[in-house]
């Protein structure tokens, strides 16, 4: 995997996008795998999202190398709007659906369900942001 990534000579913003996608998907998969056994304790798997804190390291300046240019900024802007916008929309729709469902059954919404929802939307947001950025970079690494 790493030799493949190296061969493509990614720029720093692409590395950030890959990190966001991989870490978010891993966190979602980990929690989904552990949930049947551990219940709401499996939400601790979302701690993996803390790894997103290393992404600024990719953007540090090294000599005269251009870290992020106008195209990267444009791609990041589109990816952020798409990722955050979609996640926010899904979160609101899910909350409305959950509220309607539980009020029909005359029950309170469990707080554990809200935790699952909030954490998964957070992970989903970064996964979508990373994937959107990578899709925009697709096909522009070759020497042409």
């Amino acid at each position: 995997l790493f030799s493949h990534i190296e061969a493509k000579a990614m720029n720093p913003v692409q590395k950030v996008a890959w990190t966001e996608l991989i870490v978010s998907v891993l966190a979602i998969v980990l929690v989904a795998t552990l949930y049947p056994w551990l219940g709401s304790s499996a939400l601790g798997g979302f701690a993996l999202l803390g790894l997103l804190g290393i992404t600024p390291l990719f953007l540090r300046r090294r000599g005269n190398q251009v870290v992020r240019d106008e195209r990267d900024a444009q791609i990041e802007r589109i990816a952020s709007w798409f990722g955050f916008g979609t996640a926010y929309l899904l979160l609101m729709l899910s909350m409305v659906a959950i509220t309607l469902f539980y009020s029909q059954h005359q029950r309170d919404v469990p707080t554990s369900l809200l935790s699952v929802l909030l954490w998964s939307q957070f992970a989903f947001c970064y996964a979508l942001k990373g994937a959107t950025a990578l899709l925009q970079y697709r096909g522009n690494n070759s020497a042409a």
Partner: protein
Amino acid sequence: MTQQALADAVGVTRQTIVAMETGTYTPSLALAIRIARVFDCKVEDVFELNE
């Protein structure tokens, strides 16, 4: 001139030069002018508008 040399001269990444060559990215006016200056010609000699 290599893509990397042009990228270094105008302050962008090589991928941005590739994206411009393949027509998947439209540069800002400032970048277009910087590229034209590198080649010592007018912007319209380097870029054309497809209507």
